[in-house]
């Protein structure tokens, strides 16, 4: 289960919309055990493509340091699909870097963005519910 604040949700969707016509991506910082996301780290897509994304490694380095300084970790990644559903593609599954992460897909196929989250472990995709809260105490 993934819990995100409204602020994180808005930042994530805004970053994806701003990235059009290319895919956008970013990292999510929070508590690995509870699945609470407290920070959205919009990142540069160095693939600069409407079909592929790669998080700028420098952005990952900064996000990782920032999250750890706050006592959190990077617990997932989000990226947009500009014309397809909010579901992990074969490429997303093949290149998923960490089985403990949450993989959030933002589909911009229709006028209203769709946000869905998944775990990807050993090539198996499992969807998980996303809860958006106005506020919560993650500690």
């Amino acid at each position, binding site marked *: 289960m993934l819990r995100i604040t409204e602020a994180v949700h808005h930042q994530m969707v805004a970053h994806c919309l701003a990235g059009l016509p290319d895919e956008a991506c970013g990292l999510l910082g929070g508590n690995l055990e509870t699945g609470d996301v407290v920070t959205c780290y919009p990142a540069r897509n160095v693939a600069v493509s409407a079909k592929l*994304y*790669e998080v700028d*490694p420098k952005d*990952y*380095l900064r996000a*990782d340091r920032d999250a750890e300084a706050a006592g959190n970790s*990077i617990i997932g990644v989000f990226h947009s699909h500009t014309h397809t559903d909010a579901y992990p*593609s074969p490429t997303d599954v093949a*290149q998923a*870097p960490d089985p403990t992460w949450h993989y959030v897909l933002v589909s911009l196929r229709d006028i209203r963005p769709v946000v869905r989250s998944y775990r990807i472990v050993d090539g198996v995709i499992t969807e998980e519910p996303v809860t958006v809260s106005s506020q919560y105490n993650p500690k």
Partner: protein
Amino acid sequence: MSVTVHLPTVLRSHAGGAKDVTADGATVGEVLQSLAAEYPGLSGQVINGDGSLHKFVNVYVNDDDVRYLSSLDTPVTDTDEVSILPAVAGGATDISGSRPA
């Protein structure tokens, strides 16, 4: 040289759960080899069998990506921090496994 190596969450289980470990070497390559010698679970994860850097792994010395320095021959000193981060990539298109060098 004895440097601090910061591990990504995905590799920490191979080092007993540690976030930061120490390894010896005068270059990034030597540090990574010494890391793999101490934590056998890490061998093959960062450096390939032919001694090259795994294409889906990024290695930084402080704030610099070693691919823009001298790659595995990049020298390190005691005050440097080496960070290992996996490549985070994907996309809607099925291109299974390719990544520009």
